[in-house]
């Protein structure tokens, strides 16, 4: 690759961000060289400076950030000293950007094709008519259905995966030399992700475009990039060719990233026949308005067991949780707790019934009241349910903080805004534990977290389960999480349980076709995985016959 011409050179790039009237360095001297037609993967945890570097490659800094040092040379143009007008001439024309959330980045008031032709017309590359024809051609290349018509829809009339592909096509409109992909598949379901990844890869190859691919998902970057750069807290950890990097990382940090997801829960002995499950969902049909979101759902959760409920967005996973907690009374069926039927509406349940089933939310940011200190956040359930007060309550809060591995003296008087994402999620766990429940619903608790942090949370949940004989219902779309934590798996699609059973069975063939599709769609660290999968699907295997729920 390196025999090609150099396109982008960044030397000693320093970027500062402003916090509390002070400038702090967030990118600390990063070097980067990109040749024509080459794809560079930037990976790292949140806060590593990936997106900031990606934007700096366009000579752009976000609001509240400034490029404070270093040089950015794009094909002989010094982007730092170039005039704003000159930079504007490059953006969209020679350097394009694909954002993480296509849904939020498209203007909802204009048709896709009008937004497509905006850049080429503005930059004088094509006339509007040419641009429209070109759009149809590129939509076809991006494997969008009905390329002739799809451009005449509005963003809300198109699914998330299609929108992300339309956005990539739009970035390609002026045939740029460089495209920056900022986590383009992070918000998508696994089955949709495959389509977007293969479409992006094809088009980048066809037009020999250089790309910077920003992601936190190693398996994804392994499919896309020629070389990978690992970042940590604004500094480069190491950079190498993709295969070398995957097979023989040299730095400890990189190794720890690679080793993540090694956590696996030991196989649990089978449940004795006749034991009453802690929670039993019996024939539940429920929905909003006249629409049935859940149709005849049945499963049991036993003490000390984790049941993972898996499915794509819209499959009814979270709705099931709402039925169990009583937020959404079912139309038919019932929820039993230790053999007793629970009132359908949470308002009719007794305090003790409410105490027994607790919930941990996906977004710890919105699940913790930002105006309450940890003392109150964690202490309130203990005060309410167990009648603890004064000294005893403080003692209990301190115990709970110890349990979730946070130093009580340091943390007890903090507000949620003074915690990191992983710590907030730990507080969510402590709040659930404070009620001393038998059953906890974990709703995508790790999906908003970095892999290393998520690993810590999973280990903690596992430890607590053994200590307090808890039953977990684990809602997730991430099959890697399922592998590491579940005892039993329930696969859902469009409100119906497609398949259920012990984990060992679920990950062994034969599968239900939909389960097969889900399982095969989980990216693997092997750089050839995507090629193999696409070949297999073309041959009719690996769940090719089933439609993903996202489309």
């Amino acid at each position, binding site marked *: 690759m390196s025999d090609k011409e150099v396109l982008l050179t960044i030397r000693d790039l320093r970027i500062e961000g*402003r916090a509390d*009237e002070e400038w702090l360095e967030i990118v600390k001297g990063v070097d980067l060289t990109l040749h024509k037609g080459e794809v560079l993967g930037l990976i790292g945890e949140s806060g590593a400076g990936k997106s900031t570097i990606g934007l700096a490659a366009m000579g752009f800094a976000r609001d*509240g950030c400034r490029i404070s040092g270093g040089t950015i040379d794009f094909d002989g143009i010094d982007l730092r000293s170039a005039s704003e007008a000159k930079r504007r001439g490059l953006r969209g024309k020679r350097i394009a950007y694909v954002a993480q959330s296509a849904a939020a980045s498209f203007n909802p008031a204009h048709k896709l094709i009008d937004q497509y032709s905006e850049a080429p017309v503005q930059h004088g590359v094509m006339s509007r008519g040419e641009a429209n024809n070109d759009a149809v051609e590129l939509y076809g290349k991006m494997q969008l259905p009905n390329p002739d018509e799809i451009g005449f829809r509005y963003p809300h009339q198109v699914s998330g995966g299609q929108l992300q592909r339309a956005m990539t096509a739009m970035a390609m409109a002026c045939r740029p030399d460089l495209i920056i992909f900022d986590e383009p598949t992070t918000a998508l379901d696994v089955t949709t992700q495959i389509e977007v990844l293969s479409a992006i890869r094809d088009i980048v190859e066809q037009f020999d475009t250089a790309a910077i691919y920003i992601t936190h998902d190693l398996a994804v970057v392994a499919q896309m990039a020629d070389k990978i750069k690992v970042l940590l807290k604004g500094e480069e950890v190491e950079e190498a060719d993709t295969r070398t990097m995957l097979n023989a990382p040299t730095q400890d940090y990189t190794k720890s990233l690679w080793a993540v997801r090694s956590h696996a829960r030991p196989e649990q002995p089978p449940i004795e026949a006749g034991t009453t499950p802690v929670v039993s969902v019996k024939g539940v049909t429920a929905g909003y308005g006249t629409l049935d979101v859940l149709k005849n759902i049945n499963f049991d959760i036993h003490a000390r067991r984790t049941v993972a409920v898996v499915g794509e967005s819209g499959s009814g996973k979270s709705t099931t949780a709402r039925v169990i*907690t*009583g*937020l959404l009374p079912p139309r038919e069926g019932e929820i039993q707790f230790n053999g007793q039927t629970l009132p359908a509406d*949470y308002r009719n*349940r007794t*305090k003790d019934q*409410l105490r027994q089933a607790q*919930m941990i*939310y996906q*977004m710890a940011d*919105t*699940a*913790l*009241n*930002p*105006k*309450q200190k940890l003392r109150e956040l964690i202490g*309130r*359930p203990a005060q*309410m349910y167990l009648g603890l007060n004064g000294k005893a309550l403080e003692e209990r809060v301190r115990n709970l903080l110890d349990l979730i591995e946070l130093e009580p003296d340091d943390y007890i008087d903090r507000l949620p805004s003074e915690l990191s994402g992983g710590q907030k999620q730990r507080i969510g766990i402590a*709040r659930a534990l404070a*009620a001393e429940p038998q059953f906890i619903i974990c709703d995508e608790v790790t999906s908003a977290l970095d892999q290393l942090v998520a690993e810590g949370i999973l280990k903690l949940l596992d430890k607590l389960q053994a200590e307090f004989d808890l039953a977990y219902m684990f809602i997730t779309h991430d099959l890697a999480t399922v592998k590491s934590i579940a005892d039993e798996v329930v696969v859902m699609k469009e409100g119906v349980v497609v398949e259920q059973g012990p984990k060992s069975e679920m990950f062994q063939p034969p599968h239900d076709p939909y389960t097969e599709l889900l399982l095969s769609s989980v990216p693997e660290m092997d750089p050839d995985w995507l090629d193999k999968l696409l070949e297999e699907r073309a041959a009719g295997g690996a769940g090719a016959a089933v439609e993903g729920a996202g489309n």
Partner: protein
Amino acid sequence: MGFLTGLLWLAAAIIAAMAAGWLFRTAAVAVTPRGVSKELKTAPLTASFGMLMIIIYILVAFLAPVIAPFSETEVVGPEFMFPGDDPAFVLGTDNLGRDMLSRMIYAARNTVGIAFVTTALAFIIGSVLGLLAAIVGGWLDQLLSRTVDVLMAIPALIFALLLLTIVGTSIINMILVIAVIDSTRVFRLARAVAMNIVVMDYVEAAKLRGEGLWRLITREILPNAMAPLVAEFGLRFCFVFLTISALSFLGLGIQPPTADWGAMVKDTATMITFGNVTPLLPAAAIALLTVSVNFVVDWQLHRASGLKE
């Protein structure tokens, strides 16, 4: 030339105001405890000036009997004296020969005090009902919201006049009438803000925990709705203040002989034709307080919105 001199005076006044603001901020930062002074440091000069003015108004209101040279209602000299005619009456006298300065000082007490009580009452009614409507929803929300819609459909000042003629003019009645009318605006805001908070996961968690309505309002929702409500309080205060002055000007507000800036403008209005600035003084007092409060509110809104320039 006259225009230029006017511009110069205006520039001088603005510079003096900003200088006063700067001095006040420096002094305030020096004397307040660390947490408060850190916040004060971020105050722009306009807000500092506003705070200084508000403090002066409050001091004047509390110390009225000490500062005022004459009593509020006593006739002490000839009518319609120009400011400066007699050194005993710094700002001249009104249509009955009462000292303008003394009446201005006492009026600060009446007008500002009544406006504050009215706004506070409007906020208690409006925000409690608004939060209730947002949490409970359903028929209660419909009932309250539609009632508010009906009340808001009638122009506020005309509605106030109408109600006051029905229930009779007294200070208590006026406070109640204005509070009820103004609480409809507060209701709208409180409901809209709370709607966004009610859907948060932490409120759902609190509901599932089995928390009662009162605790949901006071511990979970109100603390998170405070910033916009406080900012609105400042704005509402100005409007209430102007409504009281307007009602007094129309003769339905604070009744004579109690001093009130609105009524004072009315009483001395004819003097403006003789080139006497006296009627403009109470008007200026109203304007200055309104502007000052708005300066402070702007700063608070800016902080609450989390915008940084």
